C-alpha cells in the first residue's frame, strides 16, 4: 500500500490537473480577490494617500474571502459522479486524502496571495517588500491554518444541501483568531517603524493555531467521512 505522502501527492496532483483544465477555482478566487482589493483602494486611498493601517486588513480580508471561494469546490468536485466514495474505498489512510486536498488548497491560496500582496503593495503603497520574508511567513502560516480548518469543514459539509451557506458560518468563527493574528502581524511590519518582535509574536500564535487545527483535522477526517 502506498505511504501517506505518496497518497497525498497523488490526490493533490489529481486536483491540480483538474484545476488546470477547468480553471474554475483559480479564476473565481483570483477575480474576487483582485476586485476586493480594487474596490477597497477606491474607498481607502484619498489623494494618493492610503488610510493608515488599512493595507494589512484589506490584504487579509481578500485572502479570507477568496480562500472561502476556493474551499467550496474542493470537495464539491468529489461529489460529482460519487467520486468521493471511490476515494474513500481506496486502501489508504483517509488522513492522507485530507492532506492531499489540504495541500491543493494551500497551493491555490498561495498563488492568489502572491497577486493580492503585489496589488496591495502597489495600490496602498504598503512596504511589503521591505520585510518580504516576514510577510510571506505570516501569509503562509495564516494560509495553512485557514486551509486546514476550511478543508475539514468542506469535507464535513459535502453531503449537506446548504453547504455553501454553512461553510462561511462555521469557518469564520473558528479561523477568526488566525485572521486577527495575520492582520496584527502584518500591521506590525507595515508601521513607519516596523516592530519585528510583535510580528514574531503573532507569527508564533499562528504557528500554534496551525499545529492545533492541522492535527485536529487530520485526526477527525476519518470519522467525519464515515456515513
Amino acid at each position, binding site marked *: *500500500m502506498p505511504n501517506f505522502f505518496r497518497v497525498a501527492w497523488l490526490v493533490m496532483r*489529481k486536483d491540480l490537473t483538474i484545476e488546470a483544465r477547468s480553471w474554475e477555482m483559480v479564476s473565481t478566487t483570483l477575480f474576487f480577490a483582485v476586485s476586493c482589493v480594487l474596490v477597497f483602494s477606491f474607498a481607502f486611498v484619498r489623494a494618493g494617500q492610503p488610510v493608515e493601517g488599512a493595507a494589512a486588513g484589506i490584504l487579509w480580508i481578500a485572502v479570507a474571502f477568496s480562500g472561502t471561494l476556493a474551499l467550496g469546490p474542493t470537495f464539491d468536485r468529489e461529489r460529482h459522479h*460519487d467520486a468521493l*466514495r*471511490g476515494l474513500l*474505498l*481506496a*486502501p489508504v489512510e483517509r488522513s492522507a486524502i485530507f492532506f492531499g486536498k489540504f495541500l491543493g488548497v494551500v497551493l491555490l491560496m498561495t498563488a492568489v496571495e502572491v497577486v493580492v500582496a503585489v496589488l496591495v503593495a502597489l495600490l496602498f503603497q504598503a512596504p511589503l517588500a521591505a520585510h518580504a520574508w516576514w510577510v510571506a511567513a505570516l501569509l503562509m502560516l495564516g494560509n495553512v491554518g485557514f486551509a486546514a480548518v476550511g478543508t475539514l469543514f468542506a469535507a464535513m459539509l459535502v453531503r449537506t444541501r446548504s453547504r455553501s451557506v454553512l461553510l462561511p458560518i462555521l469557518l469564520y468563527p473558528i479561523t477568526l483568531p488566525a485572521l486577527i493574528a495575520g492582520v496584527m502581524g502584518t500591521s506590525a511590519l507595515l508601521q513607519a517603524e516596523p516592530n519585528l518582535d510583535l510580528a514574531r509574536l503573532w507569527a508564533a500564535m499562528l504557528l500554534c493555531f496551525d499545529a492545533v487545527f492541522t492535527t485536529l483535522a487530520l485526526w477527525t477526517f476519518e470519522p467525519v467521512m464515515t456515513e
Partner: protein
Amino acid sequence: MPASSASSFDFDSVTVSGVSRHYGRRRALSGVSLTLRAGELVGLLGPNGAGKSTLLGLLATLIQPSRGTVLYGDQPPSAAGVALRARLGFLPHDLQLYAELTARENLEFFGGLHGFHDPAGRAAAALERAGLADRADDPVQGFSRGMRQRLALERTLLHHPRLVLLDEPFTGLDEASGRALAARLQTLGREQRIVLLATHDMEAVEGLLDRVLVLREGRLTELPARDAPLRERYRAALAR
C-alpha cells in the same frame, strides 16, 4: 499476483448477520442476513428504493450498519482495517470517475492509490480490456454512458478484488458489451471471486447467476432455484 495483494488479509466468504440500517425514521435495511462464498455469482433484485444500494454500500464498508454485523472471513471491518479495502471492488451506479481526467489518468490515479508498482502498465492493459485503448487520452466527460460504464468496471477490477460489488453494471451497454460483461462475470466466478450484482436487467443475467436474492422494503429473501425464467420467479416473489 496483484501488488495490492501484498497485504496479507484475504477471505473466502462474507457473512451478514441481522443487519439493519436506518436513515432517521426510514428503515433502508431490516434484519438482513446472508452469506456470500468465493466463486459465487449472486444477483440482487428489488424495486427502486428497496435498499439494494444501501446493502452494497454497507458491504463496501462505506456505510455503517445501525445494528448487526458484517464479517469478511471471520474478521469485522474494524479489525481488517485498510487492508480490507484492498480486497473490495465497488462499481456504483454513479461510476466514481473524474470527468475532467482522461480514461488513462483515471485508471492510473486509482492504480496509484492501490500502490501498484506499474500503474501505467496496469492502466494500459485495463484500457485494452475495456476496448478504450484508442480513446485512452480523451477526457471522460466526452464518453458515452456505455464507455464510462466499461471504464468504471475496469477501475473496479483493477486491483483484483476478492469481493466485487456491482450496481447496475449493464446500464448503457450495447449488446456486444453486455455479452462481454457476462463473460467477464463468469470468469470472475471461476477465479473464486465473490460477486454480488444488483440489477433490474433480468434478461442480461438470465442463466448467469448462481443465486438470486430479492430485497423488498429492506427485507431479504432468496428466489427458488431455476424452475422458471428469472422474471417470473421475481414477479412471484414480489406478489407474495
